């Protein structure tokens, strides 16, 4: 579990023991294993990890957007939001929550927008379901939303189709759709991964501004540690379906407890003369397959500090009292790690 930065504030979303399994040709796999966290209003929580670590499945489980015929959310999982347990809520309840109270944006804005409808229509669709506004008011609101996400000429753009917009503009339209009902929580799944770095900066800036204006809580799912350092308050690090460490963004970057977090931070190319052209520290090997998880710590095989205990026994997620937690028998509690980047 991870505690929020402000213990007085009541969390708006409480996830406990979230476990999601998939039926596959090779048997049942547990893609998300016993994940717990809280979110309070106005904060940004990052979920980081490499492909297949379960970060997207976590977010889609919260939204219940996974295909039901192959997915099972363990009945002991609890996703508490406004007194409802979303893990077991009816589809009717979910429809009220989705888009209105919890909204989501995806990595690929082109495939998430409907190519045959004007973008105005797609914003108005959400308003039609979740508000009592009439048609003219909805159009007015759609234009306002496009203006809010800084799309030029919103009166004209509202009648355009997705293919007429650039990648960055499409992602802004996605954000407009997500925010038009002023949700309590915005889940952003790799919102800038497909975008160029200058467009990424625009989108991150926009999300920051909107968070401040609307006090929306943001769950940011990404593999880009730079983006996490720039916008997140707290971070969950996932590995092979498990949360292996969590804490404030400062602690995660400067005092990582888990060897995986440390290794991940080290493997980013560094700017500056000191590191130029040097070999990068790497993590040997690859992530274990969810079909063949080791009995011990899931990172043990690649861990430079591994001991016999790590191979045979899986560590519990331990809380260290200061709002941090980690899943390791031998946490890196020594002196703070030096800053990872030379100043620019």
């Amino acid at each position: 579990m991870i505690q929020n930065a402000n213990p007085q504030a009541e969390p708006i979303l409480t996830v406990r023991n979230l476990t999601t399994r998939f039926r596959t040709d090779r048997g049942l796999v547990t893609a998300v294993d016993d994940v717990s966290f809280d979110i309070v209003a106005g904060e940004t929580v990052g979920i980081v990890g490499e492909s297949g670590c379960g970060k997207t499945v976590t977010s889609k489980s919260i939204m219940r957007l996974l295909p039901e015929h192959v997915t099972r959310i363990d009945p002991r999982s609890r996703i508490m939001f406004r007194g409802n347990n979303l893990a077991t809520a009816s589809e009717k309840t979910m429809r009220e929550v989705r888009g209105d109270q919890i909204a989501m944006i995806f990595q690929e804005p082109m495939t998430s927008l409907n190519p045959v409808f004007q973008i105005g229509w797609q914003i108005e669709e959400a308003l039609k379901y979740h508000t009592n506004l009439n048609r003219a008011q909805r159009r007015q609101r759609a234009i306002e939303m496009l203006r809010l996400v800084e799309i030029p000429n919103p009166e004209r753009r509202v009648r355009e189709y997705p293919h007429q917009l650039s990648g960055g503009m499409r992602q802004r339209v996605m954000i407009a759709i997500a925010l038009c009902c002023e949700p309590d929580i915005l889940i952003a799944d790799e919102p800038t991964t497909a975008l160029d770095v200058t467009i990424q900066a625009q989108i991150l800036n926009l999300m920051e501004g909107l968070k401040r204006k609307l006090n929306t809580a943001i769950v940011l799912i990404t593999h880009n540690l730079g983006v996490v350092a720039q916008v997140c308050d707290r971070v969950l690090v996932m590995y092979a379906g498990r949360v292996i460490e969590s804490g404030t963004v400062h602690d995660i970057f400067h005092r990582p407890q888990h060897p995986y977090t440390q290794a991940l931070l080290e493997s980013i190319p560094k700017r500056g003369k000191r590191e130029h052209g040097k070999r990068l520290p790497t993590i040997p090997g690859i992530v274990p397959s969810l079909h063949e998880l080791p009995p011990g710590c899931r990172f043990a095989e690649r861990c430079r500090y591994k001991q016999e205990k790590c191979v045979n026994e899986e560590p519990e997620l331990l809380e260290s009292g200061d709002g941090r937690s980690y899943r390791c028998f031998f946490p890196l509690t020594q002196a703070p790690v030096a800053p990872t980047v030379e100043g620019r």
Partner: protein
Amino acid sequence: MSLLQVRNLVKHFPVRGGVLNRIVGHVHAVNDVSFDVSKGETLGIVGESGCGKSTLGKMLIRLIEPTSGSIHYEGKDITSLSHSDLMPFRRTMQIIFQDPYSSLNPRLTVRSLLKEAIAFHGIVPRAEMDDYITELIRRVGLRRDAADKFPHEFSGGQRQRIGIARALVTKPEFIVADEPVSALDVSIQAQVLNLLMDLKDEFGLTLVFISHDLKVIQHFCDRVMVMYLGHAVETLPCLDLDEQVQHAYSKALLGANPIDDPDQRRPLTILQGDVPSPFHMPAGCPFTGRCPDVVDRCRAEMPPIIERGDGHRIACWVANEEAAQPAAPAKSIG
């Protein structure tokens, strides 16, 4: 002496339209790009999607035919060599693609796809082929049994290692690496970058490394060429890039990249607007529409490339005038 000399390279792709499918215009993918690559050097090419960096990379090894301009390799003009005359260069010049899955034949095992190139170019005698392949596979960090597997049996990082082995199999001197680590996770990216670094030393390779990630280029390359809308707007050494960078677009690329440290948060550089379409090129400097320092002259005239010494070349009216000011304070420029 430079291994590769590129002069005024241009690529225009025709755009067809209308009922008669006539050519209605041209996409200006690469516009008048010139540069040299010295032997043993790694030149990075950075830019955003659609800036022409991949087109340029493919032109260097004649996978795309240039519209005009010239490419000299070891002093020999290869721009218009015929198919058969180009063959020896096909051996010495290789390419690594971004997505090794779509660039490897899914029906061939690793061994057979490597064998193809060995046999075609006659790299080693038939009897030594298997030993050569085993050694190469070991060298790129794959297990011995990898040779008899198919591409789909590997993870992304392993596939990229096969892509690298495929490029190395002909014993090349020059390799274009087109976004070789962009599709990989951070920890795997580091593994592949290290491998490239080692192989470069071991085989004495000269590399052109194309990426949209300035941080990777800064770490890995000797020099970087920044491209915008088909133009090379600035070229400079990577070592002190942060201090030396001059062009407003290069600065924006640096400033838009978040720093991997929450204690060094700063406002990200925000450029207004999107990249203009290469179908309708602006008359003057291509960056005019988004440049924070734009002056009237930028809109009217394309800035020339000015050599600043130490391999720093820049095409920008504002930066050029600033540089000229201290030397000739009384004289007006223009």
